[in-house]
């Protein structure tokens, strides 16, 4: 494989921006890393020079600072997702071949400059970024990235220095690394809420901190839109990724944040960042199948999207299916309709209902369009007669509803818009729907 193009370590790239020493680089509710403190921090990281390290999860502010400092110093670093059991963490680090794991208390000492070496060595290694997949379909697996593949999608930003990016993802996830790299390399500030804060408290803190750029999954955005404080976020950019962005969520976001640019990103841990769509419409233009988009090659085979990442050596993991031309099978089902390629859903959320294949996301899109529904989820329930049936859970938009009337109304809505096999056999009303650590709607947890 060819070597990745040389890209300077994050700290050097940020240094080259010549930000004022008082500029906030990374800010959390209880701490801040100023631009003036970065050189000292990278010197501290020299004690880990050339090592292969894992970083224990838990405090995303510390994790972000550590990743910033270790890039260029460590031979490889693997931030561990929050909430991972010790056993799962041990399995991951063993398979990734990291030597030691920096615990949270060691991180605190490291960030405070304890045990710092007297003489710092320049950190210019091409640090490998080892990231864990979300493990929704099995145990988490490791995907090897290079610095080049992490920063590839970063776009220069005219008003970058005034951009204050909210970090709603775990920095150990690919989506989190993208927010980190975009915020810091364009000269902005990364605002990292404490994960113990609930949705309302997170929004309040981000609003107080003047958050201008925010990236989240459609599931998280639907949750944010339900919080009254969200209108106070002074957003100039709204980014969606990780799940299908349908027309309903795009127009709801435009209505709430009329001054914000809305971008939806296609990315996966396997492919890296694929491409961004900025025209506020669901899916992406069909001409991209011919021309590619943002340097990525695209192809549709038997309804499955294949993507050839622009950086050919960016990932290596045994579970990734790749063809001879470097195209990766994404697991995302798509359909070409007119001049648009629309996402139908993940192949593992396609159910067989009495012999008819039904994509859960397509049913959810129809239900989301119902005016009284804020969020919804479709899962399969076993049926002795048809193999499985669809069970729908909905979160109402307001508290003021009659249970039986709402369920009947949504059932009628589905009957008028969906073929028989795609109509939910049962509808229940719930207060909330679980999302995974990666911010995606969970189809396995009980609401």
């Amino acid at each position, binding site marked *: 494989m060819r070597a990745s193009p040389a890209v300077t370590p994050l700290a050097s790239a940020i240094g080259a921006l010549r930000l004022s020493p008082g500029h906030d680089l990374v800010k959390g509710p209880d701490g801040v890393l100023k631009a003036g403190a970065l050189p000292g921090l990278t010197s501290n990281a020299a004690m880990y020079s050339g090592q292969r390290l894992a970083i224990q999860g838990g405090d995303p502010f510390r994790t972000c600072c550590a990743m910033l400092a270790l890039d260029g110093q460590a031979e490889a670093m693997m931030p561990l997702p929050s909430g991972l059991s010790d056993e799962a963490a041990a399995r991951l680090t063993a398979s990734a071949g990291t030597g030691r794991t920096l615990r949270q208390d060691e991180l605190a000492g490291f960030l405070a400059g304890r045990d710092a070496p007297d003489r710092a060595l320049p950190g210019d290694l091409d640090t490998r970024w080892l990231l864990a997949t979300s493990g929704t379909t099995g145990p988490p697996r490791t995907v090897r990235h290079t610095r080049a593949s992490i920063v590839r999608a970063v776009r220069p930003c005219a008003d970058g220095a005034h951009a204050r990016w909210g970090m709603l993802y775990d920095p150990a996830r690919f989506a989190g690394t993208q927010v980190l790299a975009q915020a810091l390399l364009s000269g902005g500030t990364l605002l990292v809420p404490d994960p113990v804060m609930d949705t309302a408290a997170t929004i309040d803190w981000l609003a107080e901190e003047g958050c201008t750029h925010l990236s989240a999954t459609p599931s998280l955005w639907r949750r944010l839109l339900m919080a009254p404080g969200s209108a106070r976020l002074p957003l100039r950019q709204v980014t969606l990724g990780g799940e299908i962005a349908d027309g309903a969520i795009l127009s709801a976001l435009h209505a709430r944040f009329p001054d914000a640019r809305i971008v939806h990103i296609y990315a996966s841990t396997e492919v890296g960042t694929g491409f961004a769509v900025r025209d506020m419409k669901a899916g992406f233009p069909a001409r991209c199948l011919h021309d590619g988009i943002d340097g990525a090659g695209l192809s549709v085979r038997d309804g499955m999207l294949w993507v050839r990442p622009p950086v050919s050596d960016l990932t290596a993991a045994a579970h990734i299916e790749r063809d001879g031309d470097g195209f990766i099978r994404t697991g995302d089902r798509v359909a070409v309709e007119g001049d648009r390629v629309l996402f139908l859903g993940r192949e593992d959320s396609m159910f067989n209902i009495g012999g008819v294949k039904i994509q859960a996301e397509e049913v959810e899109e129809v239900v989301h369009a119902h005016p009284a529904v804020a969020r919804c989820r479709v899962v399969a329930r076993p049926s002795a007669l048809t193999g499985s049936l669809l069970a729908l859970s909905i979160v109402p938009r307001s508290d003021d509803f009659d249970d039986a009337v709402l369920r009947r109304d949504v059932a009628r809505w589905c009957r008028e818009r969906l073929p028989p096999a795609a109509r939910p056999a049962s509808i229940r009303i719930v207060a909330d729907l679980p999302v995974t650590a990666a911010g995606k709607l969970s189809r396995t947890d*009980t609401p």
Partner: protein
Amino acid sequence: MNEMSPSFEPAVPAGAFTRDALRTRIAALFDEMWREDHDSDPPPLEDDTVLLETGFDSMAFAVLVARLDDELGFDPFTMTEDPVYPQTFSEFLDFYEKCAPRPQ
């Protein structure tokens, strides 16, 4: 997580599944589902009515069974090892009666 739908709990207490009660409940749900899809009156459900001649297909019966599970708290079709395919309404009722939970 709060369950905001009290009607999702079995509406009928265990031990109340007499044949007559089951007949009434199943017929009422059948009628309700029929009216969701048809403008005409539902066909009467007699003991010898052949289920698949009612105008309901197997998908509709699967939904009926799922809704009865939500309402009664049991699904006879998932409770037996041997596959059972009731053909008449009477056989359908027999099956529900046989599998209904008994009072302690």
